[in-house]
C-alpha cells in the first residue's frame, strides 16, 4: 500500500477509535509481533525482527471494532486479533502485516450476576481480573491455566483454552454462556442467551477455537462457581503408566476430581523433583477433590480404595499442596524451558483405548528421529472417556542459523503431530493451531475441512481475518 493510501486508512481508523488508540510506533509494532510461539521468540533471540503490523488499533467496544473491520474490509487489509499474546501457536502474530486489533481496552466488567452465576465482561479483560471480581463476591471462575494472569477472556475463548481444575469444571467452552462477536463485515452478533439448546448448532462452539479467523469476540458471559467448602490434595506414585491410566479411568467413572495430573517418569524425575520435591522414581499423580465437605470425605475414601487396587503409593497431601501453591511457578523464567533450547508442547487428546499407545508412539517417534531431543509428558485433563497428553520435546543444541532452527522445529512438530494423528489423536488439545500447526489441519480433518472453509468463505470472503492461521 502506498504512503498516501496508508495515511488515508490511518486517519479513518483514528476517526473510528480515537487518535490515541491507533499507533504506527515501532514500540507497538515490535511488542505485537512476538508472542509465546517458540519460532517468534527464537527470531527475536537471534536479533531478527518478526513480521510486524503496519498499524496497531485498540478499540473500546464492539461498535468501534465494527468500524475497524469495515475499514479493513473495504481496503482489504489483514486483521490479526491480539489479546494477551500469551499463545504458543503463533496465532496472534501478524504474519501478513496490516492491522493488529488489540482487545485489551475492552476490559470492562459489566455485571456480576449472582443469580445467573456469570460475569459479563469485555473480551479484553485479563482473566485474573475477572477471577478477582468473582472472589470479591465469594465466587471463583475455576479457570486456572498457567497463563491466568497474562491472558484475556477472548484469548482463552479464541483458542479453546483449559485450566488446571478442568476435570471437574470443564474447559473454557463449558464456562461460557453467551458471546458478542463482530463478524468480519462489521456486523455485531450475539450468540444465544443460553448455551444448551436445540435451536440449531451452538453458535458459541463455532466461534470458540476459531482463533480470530471468523470474527472478533468482544464480550462474553463467563460462568462463576461457589468456592468449595473443602479442597483436598493427595499425591500418588505409580510404578507404571498402565496402572496410572487404569486408575484414572476408573476413578472418573465414580466422581470427578478437580485436579488430576499424571507425570511420566521423565517429568517426575525432572520438573516434579525440582519444584514439588518428589525424589522417588515412578509416575507421580496429583489429585485434588473439592466441594461440599461431606462429599469430599466420601470422594477421598473412594479415591484411596480405587488407587490402592492399582498399587499406587499414597504420598499424602504434602506434595499435592506444594504443587497447588507452585502451579504457576513452573512457567516463570528460570523454571521453564527457555532459549537457547528448542522446545514445544504437542498436546493431544484421545479416548482411553488409544491414549497410552499414543504416548508411547510419540515418545518413540521423537526420540528415534531426533536423538538430540528429550521427551517428557504429563496427563492433566481427564474425562470419563479419555484424557489428554501434554507432551514436550526439549532440544538443547539448536542450530544458530534461524532458518535451520526453523526447519528443525517444524520437523519435530510434523513428526510428533503426525504420529498422534496416525494413532487416533488430534492436532491439538488446548493451545490451538495458529500458524504453527495450520498445515496439519487438513491431515486431521480430510474432507471435513470443507466445513471450516465454507464458514470462512461466507463470513470472511476477503480473507482478511487472521490470514494463514488455523489452516484457513
Amino acid at each position, binding site marked *: 500500500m502506498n504512503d498516501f493510501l496508508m495515511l488515508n486508512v490511518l486517519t479513518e481508523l483514528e476517526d473510528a477509535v480515537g487518535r490515541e488508540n491507533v499507533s504506527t510506533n515501532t514500540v*507497538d509494532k515490535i511488542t505485537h509481533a*512476538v508472542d509465546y510461539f517458540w519460532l517468534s521468540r527464537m527470531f*527475536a533471540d537471534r536479533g531478527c525482527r518478526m513480521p510486524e503490523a503496519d498499524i496497531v488499533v485498540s478499540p473500546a467496544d464492539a461498535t468501534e471494532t465494527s468500524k475497524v473491520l469495515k475499514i479493513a474490509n473495504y481496503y482489504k487489509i489483514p486483521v490479526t486479533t491480539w489479546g494477551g499474546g500469551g499463545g504458543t501457536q503463533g496465532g496472534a502474530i501478524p504474519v501478513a502485516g496490516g492491522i493488529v486489533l488489540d482487545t485489551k481496552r475492552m476490559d470492562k466488567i459489566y455485571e456480576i450476576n449472582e443469580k445467573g452465576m456469570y460475569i459479563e465482561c469485555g473480551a479484553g479483560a485479563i482473566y485474573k481480573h475477572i477471577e478477582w471480581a468473582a472472589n470479591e463476591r465469594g465466587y471463583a471462575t475455576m479457570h486456572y491455566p498457567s497463563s491466568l494472569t497474562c491472558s484475556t477472556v477472548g484469548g482463552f475463548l479464541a483458542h479453546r483454552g483449559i485450566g488446571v481444575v478442568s476435570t471437574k469444571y470443564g474447559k473454557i467452552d463449558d464456562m461460557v454462556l453467551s458471546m458478542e462477536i463482530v463478524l468480519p463485515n462489521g456486523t455485531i452478533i450475539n450468540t444465544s442467551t443460553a448455551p444448551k439448546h436445540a435451536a440449531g448448532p451452538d453458535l458459541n462452539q463455532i466461534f470458540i477455537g476459531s482463533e480470530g479467523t471468523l470474527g472478533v469476540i468482544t464480550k462474553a458471559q463467563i460462568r462463576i462457581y461457589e468456592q468449595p467448602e473443602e479442597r483436598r490434595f493427595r499425591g500418588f506414585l505409580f510404578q507404571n503408566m498402565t496402572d496410572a491410566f487404569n486408575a484414572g479411568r476408573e476413578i472418573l467413572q465414580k466422581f470427578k476430581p478437580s485436579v488430576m495430573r499424571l507425570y511420566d517418569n521423565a517429568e517426575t524425575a525432572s520438573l516434579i523433583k525440582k519444584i514439588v520435591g518428589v525424589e522417588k522414581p515412578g509416575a507421580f499423580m496429583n489429585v485434588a477433590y473439592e466441594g461440599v465437605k461431606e462429599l469430599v470425605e466420601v470422594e477421598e475414601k473412594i479415591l484411596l480404595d480405587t488407587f490402592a487396587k492399582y498399587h499406587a503409593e499414597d504420598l499424602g497431601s504434602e506434595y499435592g499442596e506444594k504443587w497447588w501453591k507452585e502451579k504457576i511457578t513452573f512457567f516463570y523464567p528460570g*523454571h521453564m524451558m527457555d532459549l537457547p533450547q528448542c522446545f514445544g508442547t504437542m498436546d493431544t487428546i484421545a479416548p482411553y483405548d488409544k491414549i497410552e499407545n499414543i504416548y508411547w508412539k510419540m515418545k518413540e517417534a521423537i526420540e528415534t528421529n531426533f536423538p538430540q531431543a528429550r521427551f517428557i509428558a504429563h496427563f492433566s485433563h481427564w474425562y470419563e472417556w479419555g484424557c489428554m497428553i501434554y507432551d514436550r520435546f526439549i532440544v538443547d543444541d539448536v542450530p544458530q542459523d534461524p532458518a535451520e532452527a526453523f526447519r528443525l522445529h517444524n520437523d519435530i512438530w510434523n513428526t510428533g503431530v503426525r504420529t498422534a494423528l496416525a494413532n487416533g489423536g488430534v492436532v491439538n488439545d488446548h493451545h490451538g493451531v495458529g500458524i504453527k500447526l495450520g498445515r496439519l489441519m487438513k491431515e486431521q480433518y480430510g474432507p471435513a475441512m470443507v466445513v471450516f472453509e465454507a464458514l470462512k468463505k461466507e463470513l470472511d470472503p476477503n480473507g482478511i481475518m487472521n490470514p494463514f492461521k488455523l489452516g484457513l
Partner: protein
Amino acid sequence: MLISQKSKQIVDSCRFCWMCRHICPIGNATGQERNTARARALTLSLVERGAADFSGGIADNVYECALCGACTKECATGWDPVKFTKETRNEIVMTGAAPAYITKMIETLSETGNVYGKTALCDDLKKAIDGVSAKTDVLFFLGSDARYAACKQAKGAIEMLKGAGVKFTVLADEPGSGYAWDFLVGAADETKNAMTECAKALNEFKTVVCYDPADAKVMLREYKEWGIELKPEIKTFTAFLAGKIADGSIKAAKTNKTLYFQDPALLARDLEETQPARDVLAACGEVKEMLLFGKDVMWAGSSMMAVYMPKVMKLVAERRWADLAHVGGKVMVTASPSEYAALADVKPEGMELYTIEEVVKGC
C-alpha cells in the same frame, strides 16, 4: 546498551514472560501491550541486539513505567524489571535519546530543584513553614512533591504536628532528596550530587521524618548504594505518627467512617512498611481493605508522572477509585502526597479522600 550484565540478564528473562501483566497499574489502565515488563524487555533486548534503537516510542515506553515494583514483587523467580528500566533511563539520557518532554523535565529539575518548575511555595505553606523554621532535633522533611504539588496537604501536616505539640523543624529552603533525579535518570552523577547535598542538610538533625515515602525510600536505600553518609535516624511519617499515637503524645480523633488505606507502593514494597499506617487509622475508626493492599498494593498515580502523561495518570487513579467502589468503600486514605494529588484529580462524586494526618486530626 551500557547497562549492567545483571540488567541484561533480567531483560532476557522477562522478554517472553507476561506473568506480571495483571498487576501493572499502567498496563491495566491503558490496555496497551507496550505497558508490560515483557514488552519493555522485548524491545530493549532488540536494542541490545542491534535490531532496534530508542526511536519509535521505545524510549518513551521506558518512561511510561511507574517504577512501583509490582512486577518485581510478583515475579516467582525474583527478576526485577525496575532495575533494567532505571538503568535504561540512564542510558537513554546519557546517549541523548530521551524524549523531549523528559529532557525538559530534567532541565526544569536542574534549574528549579523540582520537576514542576515552581520557584516559590504557595503562600499558606510558606507561612506554615515560617512558624516551624527554628532549629530542633527533628527535621520534618516535606519533599518536593508535597511542597509543589500538594502544598495544602503539606501545610495540614505541619499544623497537625504543631497542634499536637510535636517539636520539629521544616526547612524553608529544603533541598530535593534526589528522588526525582533517581526517577528520571537513575544512577547519574546529578543524582548522587543531589543526594549528597541533601544529606548535608539532613545531617544537622538527629531525626528526619519523611512526609513522602518516596524520599524515605531514597534516603534509606539509594543513599546507602551511593555510600552517602546519613547521621540522623530516618523515619517515615506513618511510623512516626503511629509511635506518637501509641505513646499517647498525639491523640487520634475518632470517626465513624470506614477507612481504606492506599499503601504507597514504595513504602509497602521497598521499605516493607504496611502496619503503622493501619495502626494509626485503627486508632481513628474501622479499617478495611480494598483489592490488592499492603505489599501487593496497586499503585494509584503520581503528580510527577502527571507532568508528562496526565491522561494516563487519570486512568490509573480512576481504576483505584473503582477498586474502592467494588468493595463498597467510600473513604480512601493515602500517605503519599504524590498519590494524593493523582487521586484527588479524579475523585468521584460521593467518595472521600484524606491524608492520614487529616484522619488523625478529624475528618
